[in-house]
């Protein structure tokens, strides 16, 4: 099985066409060649806009309503820019300057020549020879005017606004705003702290009516739940009276909202964003493996946010996954090593387990791993199993898929479990065999990682028959109760490693917080155990182990740790 690896960048969509047709434009006086068409929000080619062209030239044009992955609305007017097009003479030929270059006509108001006229960069397609003046005085004046207008009724309650610190209004105010408001009249007051849905709070006063949220829920989620009601100054975002905004993707509108109008109830008043340490991670709630950014401060995870990865989740993630972090800080986390029910130390427990496993006859050990474990952990478990002649398996977890992101496979690393050989084509088929082995007395030791086997056919009476039950888990359950050797493990945000998602995307995740108490990332003690029982791997780092694994298992195609970027690589399975 050869396994060429597709580099992450080309994972976009279409098959590579012949070199794209380009258009030459000037952005801030710099000549750039930009493709004639670029992918629109759905990824379909569409005429390149001024905003996209400016981006190609490395110029960022401020905007609120425009978003790469949403249909263009063009209602915030923040991206207004002055531009110019080559002049065409009465003979339909370009007018030239004395030096032979084409003469450029600046955009002006139709009936007031001399007054510059802007165009919204997000929706205006470029034409050959166009010049975009992204920082001309006229452009700046337009921006300042638009921003002033947007701020007229803004409540300026940044001190209590959760968006403060990542707010486009704040950012653009710094760049284009004025220090003082010229608006002396009373501001229009709108409803505040409106309960829009189970996870969303709306502050209408802060809203700039960019309609990103409306477009997202209508066009991406297909749940046309939000709209703008009332008229003029009293425009507000709203759901239909009596209905709540409660689909499984509502929290994306919080990310989308360029200001603090939509905020998350979960993150409400919890922590200011500038304190959060951001760690690139991967969601473990289902097999999709959405890329996430963990926001943590001093060992406490405060929120998860999607991290853009067009090959997996785009810029979105589901609410279920996003809120699936609170158990990390649960008070009943397993925090101490226990041997025979008593508090012990790592060295004692590992010494005992090593001694037992080293003398175990072949076939007397079984391993139940979890498809929530990382590839590296599974690889070490497999090494151990091979040495001990142990039966291994993992446990399947199924759920209802949806059409956007949620996968039916609720394990983050089923593919990894299969690739490393811990589970077979179908997870869980070996479990009855293990149960039978324990019942008949051939299996004397069981190693369980992160699963409650009593729920899967190996009940407490069977567990009681074992000589040794090594359990590594995060939260207590019936299996951890029965363990002779209980090893507290770490949650994904507390360790590093890789997962392979249902589509074969190999992705890295990083450590955001420390595991509580004596708990350690599984890889650390598994490495010790595997080295002691199955012989040294010759490496002690995650990187080394990963490279060893990809070299040993053909499906991983020899990909090096350093080659797996933050957005992962696709394995050909």
């Amino acid at each position: 099985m050869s396994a060429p690896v597709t580099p992450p960048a080309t994972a976009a969509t279409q098959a590579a066409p012949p070199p794209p047709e380009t258009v030459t434009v000037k952005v801030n006086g710099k000549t750039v060649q930009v493709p004639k068409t670029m992918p629109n929000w759905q990824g379909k080619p569409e005429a390149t806009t001024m905003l996209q062209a400016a981006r190609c030239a490395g110029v960022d044009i401020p905007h609120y309503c425009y978003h790469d992955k949403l249909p263009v609305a063009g209602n915030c007017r923040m991206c207004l820019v002055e531009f110019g097009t080559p002049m065409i003479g009465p003979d339909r030929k370009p007018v030239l300057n004395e030096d032979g270059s084409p003469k450029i006509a600046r955009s002006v108001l139709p009936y007031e020549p001399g007054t510059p006229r802007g165009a919204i960069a997000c929706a205006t397609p470029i034409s050959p020879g166009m010049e975009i003046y992204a920082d001309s005085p006229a452009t700046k004046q337009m921006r300042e005017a638009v921003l002033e207008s947007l701020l007229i009724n803004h409540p300026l309650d940044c001190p209590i606004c959760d968006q403060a610190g990542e707010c486009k209004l704040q950012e653009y105010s710094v760049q284009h705003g004025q220090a003082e408001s010229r608006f002396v009249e009373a501001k229009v007051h709108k409803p505040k702290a409106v309960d829009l849905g189970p996870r969303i709070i709306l502050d209408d006063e802060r809203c700039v009516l960019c309609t990103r949220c409306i477009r997202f829920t209508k066009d991406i989620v297909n749940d046309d739940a939000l709209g703008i009601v009332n008229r003029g100054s009293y425009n507000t975002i709203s759901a239909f009276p009596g209905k709540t905004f409660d689909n499984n993707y509502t929290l994306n509108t919080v990310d989308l909202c360029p200001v603090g109008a939509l905020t998350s109830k979960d993150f409400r008043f919890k922590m200011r964003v500038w304190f959060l340490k951001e760690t690139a991670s991967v969601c473990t709630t289902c097999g999709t493996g959405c890329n996430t950014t963990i926001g943590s401060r001093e060992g406490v995870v405060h929120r998860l946010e999607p991290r853009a990865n067009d090959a997996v989740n785009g810029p979105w993630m589901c609410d279920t996954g996003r809120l699936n972090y609170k158990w990390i800080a649960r008070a009943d986390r397993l925090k101490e090593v226990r041997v025979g029910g008593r508090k012990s130390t790592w060295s004692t427990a590992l010494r005992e387990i090593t001694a037992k496993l080293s003398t175990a006859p072949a076939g007397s050990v079984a391993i139940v791993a979890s498809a929530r474990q990382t590839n590296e952990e599974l690889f070490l478990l497999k090494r151990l199993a091979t040495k001990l002649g142990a039966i291994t398996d993992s446990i399947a977890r199924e759920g209802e898929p949806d059409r956007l992101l949620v996968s039916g496979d609720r394990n983050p690393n089923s593919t990894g479990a299969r690739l490393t050989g811990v589970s077979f084509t179908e997870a869980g088929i070996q479990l009855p065999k293990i149960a039978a082995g324990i019942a008949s007395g051939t299996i004397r030791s069981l190693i369980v990682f992160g699963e409650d086997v009593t729920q899967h056919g190996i009940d407490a009476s069977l567990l009681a028959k074992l000589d040794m039950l090594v359990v590594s888990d995060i939260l207590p359950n019936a299996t951890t109760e029965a363990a002779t050797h209980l090893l507290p493990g770490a949650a994904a945000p507390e360790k590093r490693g890789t997962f392979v998602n249902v589509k074969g995307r190999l992705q890295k995740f990083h450590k955001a917080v420390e595991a509580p108490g004596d708990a350690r990332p599984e890889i650390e003690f598994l490495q010790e155990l595997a080295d002691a029982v199955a012989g040294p791997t010759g490496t002690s780092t995650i990187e080394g182990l990963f490279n060893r694994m990809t070299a040993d298992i053909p499906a991983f195609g020899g990909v090096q740790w350093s080659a797996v970027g933050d957005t992962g690589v696709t394995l050909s399975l």
Partner: protein
Amino acid sequence: MSTKVVERKPLSAWERSYIPSFLGGLGVTWNHFKRTAPFLGNKPITMEYPEQKWVVPEGYRGAPYLVKDQEGATKCVSCQLCEFVCPPKAIRITPPGENGQPADRANAEKMPREFEINMLRCIFCGLCQEVCPEEAIFLQKDYSLTGTSREEMVYNKEKLLKLGGTHAGIQKWKHKLEEAEAQESFPVATEPQKHSH
């Protein structure tokens, strides 16, 4: 560059014997002694501290405390800017969180659940006061902070508010509320909603 070289006069043998400077020193110290010692002059300039208290000048930067508004409500909205700006990291704020206690004054949605200043760490720089958008923290005139344990020197919200007293300022949130109430109500009530007031 205009460097002025100051000529250093070589000392004479007499001067190098230390004797003139020794005698000069004796003179200086004697004069001070004479001025201060009882029976001779007795004009000590030492302030007898606990009995005599120093008059703290305006603008003195003493310990930072939280203040209340005219109506006895907490002014702090837990924006955590002071915590962010504090150079020695003496300030620690626990925000209310999603289900936290609502603010104790109308229209302000947020109030700190806990606000701690470690007075052992505080360097009285005044950046917290300067950065505060709510005028809720002020460096006051206390300069003599004592305690018998480190824990005691970490002042909590209750203590800070008690020590801070009242600061009469424009009541921003109250003002906003009054403004909103004076305005016409909205043409259409958008449900479901709950107004903050």
